[in-house]
């Protein structure tokens, strides 16, 4: 199946059955009808990706040496041992580097599932997809991660076709979507990004992560920051945000859900992965200024 291949036969049969299904709650369903959104079907997209090659093994050899090629254009920061030659096992250099090949794999999986969901929506003539949920999880105990996106395709009676025929999409539905539109914003697309940074510890990071503040830090005070790890974690967060910003143009990313995972691989060595999800929205009219809010106390 191509990234945006044909809609599977079973999905086509379901979507053409004449009735609709939706992932909306009764409240969301009522709010959508009130807004003029008519649900036409539950649409979804899947993509199973093999997920095993985390090593510093891109074809460009990044992460193998601080003196190696810096191909890929990603974030990279080197750290050098201040001690000179100590021994064969002494980590004389360290490196933080963006694992662009991991990010590419994640982006491929997410985009394929997302495109397939939109393709289903397009096939039923939808203008947009609301209440999108997305998950990514390991299939059983394998190195395969499945991306799954699901949403409710809707039609706005009397509205022109969406730009390039591609439906708009949003994580929001029901009252929250209604408030967004009332505030003057129209959803454009869901946006999700992932950044992965590998920490290859040098001697001081290794020592401090093993509880070694006694040595270096004792001479500087009672404790010390582990700069290499702090820098890596901050970089992963900023990279995820900047990836999202590059997709925004002059739009706003609303209601971001952010998560970060750190996996320690060894003494000081770790992988930091950050994901960021939100709805890209575009202002179509000025804010109607709200009156200053009045505090209330509820007697009940």
């Amino acid at each position, binding site marked *: 199946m191509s990234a945006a291949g044909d809609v599977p036969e079973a999905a086509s049969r379901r979507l053409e059955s004449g009735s609709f299904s939706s992932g909306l709650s009764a409240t969301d369903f009522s709010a959508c009808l009130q807004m*003029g*959104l008519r649900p036409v079907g539950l649409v979804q997209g899947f993509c199973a990706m093999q997920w095993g090659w985390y090593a510093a093994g891109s074809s460009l050899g990044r992460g193998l040496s601080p003196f190696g090629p810096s191909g890929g254009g990603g974030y990279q920061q080197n750290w050098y041992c201040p001690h000179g030659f100590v021994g064969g096992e002494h980590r004389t250099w360290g490196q933080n580097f963006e694992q662009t090949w991991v990010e590419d794999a994640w982006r491929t999986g997410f985009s394929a599932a997302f495109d397939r969901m939109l393709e289903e929506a397009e096939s039923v003539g939808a*203008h*947009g997809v609301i209440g999108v949920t997305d998950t990514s999880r390991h299939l059983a105990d394998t190195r395969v991660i499945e991306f799954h996106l699901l949403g409710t395709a809707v039609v706005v009676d009397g*509205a*022109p076709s*969406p730009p390039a025929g591609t439906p708009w999409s949003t994580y929001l539905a029901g009252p*929250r979507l209604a*408030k967004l*539109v009332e*505030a003057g*914003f*129209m959803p454009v697309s869901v946006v999700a990004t992932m950044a992965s940074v590998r920490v290859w510890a040098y001697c001081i990071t290794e020592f*401090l*992560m*093993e*509880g*070694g*503040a*006694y040595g270096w*830090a004792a001479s500087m*005070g*009672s*404790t*010390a*920051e*582990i700069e290499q*790890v*702090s820098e890596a*974690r*901050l970089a992963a*967060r*900023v990279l995820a945000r900047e990836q999202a*910003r590059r997709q*925004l*143009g*002059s*739009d*706003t*990313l609303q*209601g*971001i859900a*952010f998560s970060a995972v*750190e996996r320690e691989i060894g003494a000081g060595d770790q992988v930091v992965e950050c994901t*960021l999800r*939100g709805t890209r929205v*575009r*202002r*179509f*009219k000025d804010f109607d*200024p*709200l*009156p*200053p809010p*009045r*505090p*209330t*106390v509820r*007697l*009940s």
Partner: protein
Amino acid sequence: MLQAVTSLSQGVHRPDDRAVTSDLTVDESLLLHALGWEPVDLVFGVSVTAVQAGAWTWGRGQLQSPSDAHNLAVSTASSRLRQECAAVGGHGVVGVRAGVEIHPRHVDVALVGTAVRPIGSDRPPVQPFVSGLSARDFALLAAAGWSPIGLAFGASFVYAPRRDAATALRQSRQNVELTNPTQALYAAREAAMERMQASGLALGAQGVVGVQIAEGPMTFARHVIGFTARGTAVRLLAGEHRTITPDIVLPLNDAVVQFEAEALRGRR
């Protein structure tokens, strides 16, 4: 809705708009806008600090190294959050969520929040504020004449002291207060609160609101009890505190009468 969808189809862009990222809800964005503020960007502050080797094993009374590591991590992460905020032109950060993890060898702190500014303002202050309060609380504080300044925090870790063998034997069949742990816990709690208050004062605050206290034994060292306290340091900006007079709302809805199937069988 039709107007919104039509404008999207026509590809209408407003050239004055800039890319914005925000983790505020729609309600929070509207509320801030009503106060004359707007989101600018999602900003982060992170710090990982090392804990001395053997700090959990050989301590007596209060353990200094983990407490110092916690305070250094929070203050460093907080100052990075301010730097990010200033770099994007924000006047402050609201709704800051703090992830604090205490490991045997290091303390990890990660802060995330949304930088905000008065609508259209392009002259950020030298020292942006950091607030752990929600946009709603920010609005309430502003209405009362107060402003958040920064995060106030304190931590204390105490080694639960043991009785000597003779005392333990003598008290084995008594219901008595264990004065050692009582005093140690009392002192440690006070120390955490005092450090939090001191960090607030260092920021020039008049008080700390929204204090959250976490306490309990460390999972990796059950003999050590940790206390952390953090809140948002606030300062009065107006000449004096403005009293908020809330409207009283009395819902007039009837109570919902629910059908109880069990009652038909006489079980109720």
